[in-house]
């Protein structure tokens, strides 16, 4: 009598446990897949919405420069904004990466602890500043500095180089790039700092023991060991620069049509993100203009995905990284 009862009990408890586990498993699976589902829904919305404009203009949508929203004579080409996005992000990386690496190297290799902790904290705090604040500061302060101290002298003395030509107003691709650089510094610097901190001390000691100077240790050993991590940090920064909207919209001058082609750093431009932010609310649902903005959104999304996937491939193929560590 006793033993079957016990068995039953055991069966019962194991059974209920299994069911609980199953529910838990199903629940977490749903939650985990919801991320993918959201991406798919977003992609679907963008693809579906941008079909009209692509049908209308074909490849000229991507490679055209004209922008005319007047009904009946509508023509939309987004090449200037694709290039604008790439140019501002490029400027941001050119300025932001060396500064970020300098900060990271200083914090990890040079700074005494009394400086390291507060500076690291402040840099991470910079990432928490809302982008509209950067935009405001850019409008009120940075724009003036750029015109007076950088753009005017550059165009005066190096104006014969096409990218420095034009009459600097401060609301241009260069200013937008600089504000982006400032905005991606916290990301790249704090991630690179983590990467450099993770470089084993035994490597530094080994390098010092064969007569390397501090600079050589940093350049040939520490950075070399951390290069894949630093690359990942730069890609994350690039991701932020490509998608950043508010501050760029406030500073880039928001040109449209052929004049938005980034031929000079000192002229007004437009990025894909700022274009959408500027016009999307004015477009009526279902109109060609509406479809255009969704098409721009799709292009931006694809660009971000390609960069991320490409970066991942480079990391696994070139640096042979798996799970964030150098294979040994």
């Amino acid at each position, binding site marked *: 009598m006793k033993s079957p009862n016990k068995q039953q009990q055991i069966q019962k408890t194991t059974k209920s446990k299994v069911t609980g586990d199953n529910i838990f498993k199903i629940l977490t699976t749903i939650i985990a897949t919801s991320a993918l589902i959201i991406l798919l829904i977003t992609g679907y919305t963008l693809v579906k919405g941008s079909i009209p404009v692509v049908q209308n203009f074909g490849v000229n949508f991507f490679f055209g420069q004209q922008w005319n929203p007047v009904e009946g004579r509508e023509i939309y080409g987004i090449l200037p904004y694709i290039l604008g996005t790439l140019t501002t992000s490029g400027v941001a990386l050119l300025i932001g990466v060396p500064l970020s690496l300098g900060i990271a190297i200083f914090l990890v290799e040079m700074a005494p602890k009394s400086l390291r902790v507060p500076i690291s904290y402040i840099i991470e705090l910079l990432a928490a500043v809302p982008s509209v604040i950067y935009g405001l500061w850019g409008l009120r302060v940075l724009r003036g500095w750029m015109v007076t101290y950088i753009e005017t002298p550059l165009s005066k003395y190096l104006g014969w180089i096409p990218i420095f030509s034009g009459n600097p107003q401060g609301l241009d691709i260069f200013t937008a790039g600089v504000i982006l650089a400032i905005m991606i510094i916290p990301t790249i610097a704090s991630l690179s700092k983590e990467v450099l901190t993770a470089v084993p001390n035994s*490597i530094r000691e080994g390098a010092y023991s064969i007569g390397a100077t501090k600079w050589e240790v940093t350049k040939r050993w520490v950075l070399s060991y951390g290069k894949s991590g630093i690359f990942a940090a730069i890609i994350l920064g690039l991701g932020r620069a490509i998608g950043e909207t508010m501050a760029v919209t406030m500073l880039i001058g928001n040109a449209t049509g052929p004049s938005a082609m980034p031929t000079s750093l000192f002229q007004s431009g437009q990025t894909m993100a700022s274009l959408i932010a500027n016009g999307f609310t004015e477009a009526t649902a279902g109109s060609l203009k509406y479809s255009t903005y969704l098409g721009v959104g799709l292009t931006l999304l694809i660009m971000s995905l390609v960069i991320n996937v490409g970066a991942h491939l480079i990391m696994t193929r070139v640096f042979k990284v798996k799970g964030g560590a150098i294979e040994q």
Partner: protein
Amino acid sequence: MTTTTTTITQEEQNNKHVTNDQTQQEIDQTAKMQAINVNVWFGQKHVLKSVNLTVKPNTVTAIIGPSGCGKSTFLRCFNRMHELAPNAKMTGKILLDCEDIYERKIDPVQIRRRVGMVFQKPNPFPTMSIYDNVAAGLKLTGTKNGKHLDDIVKRSLEQATLWDEVHEDLKKPGTSISGGQQQRLCIARAIALQPEVILMDEPCSALDPIATAKIEKLIIELKRNYAVVIVTHNMQQASRISDYTAFMYMGELIEFGETRQLFENPKVKLTENYITGAFG
């Protein structure tokens, strides 16, 4: 001081001071390296207390003592590696060929090229090939790739008794070989610079007995060309390979002498207690 009095009597204290005084306060012209009155602090902590030691050329000098006695710190003073610790402070002199390596005009980088070092845990450079691990130090001084560098790499690996095992894999990463091989690679890396002295900080403590035996054999070979200073907490190892042994305890050098004499007939009771396993 107060901490040691519990284990040694007053007489032995005096005895110890005698030994300390005997290990020259003045410059020994025959020494390759000589530590005179070395004191080291980490922050407020006084980790080395007036240590004197002489390293003769073409000998192996072992430094033994319990964990935390300051032997590794002392070793690092010999190539100014302890300066990498941000709060380290040092007084005293360390002479290399009768010249103080702590003099203002002297560049620690130059000292480290003359006084090589091998660490406790094998630390070949993971981003470099076996070849580049050995060549790294020479490349820093501007030696270009080519026959000359190939020769030095080969000779260094041969001296480190590693050439036969890796000569076909020179392009593989330095971390792709076994722990014992890695440690010999680190020795090859140190001797590629043709230093005058090689410091070894418990070089076998992360290795198995067979790898240890190979390194020990190698160390005895090395003294033909170099002076070797080895820190070890393995007393058998010290007695097997060294010519001179220093016993350190609580930041002080308790006894220093010929290995045989120190192990068979220690002058200080504390040394005897340590080598007979009474504490440690």
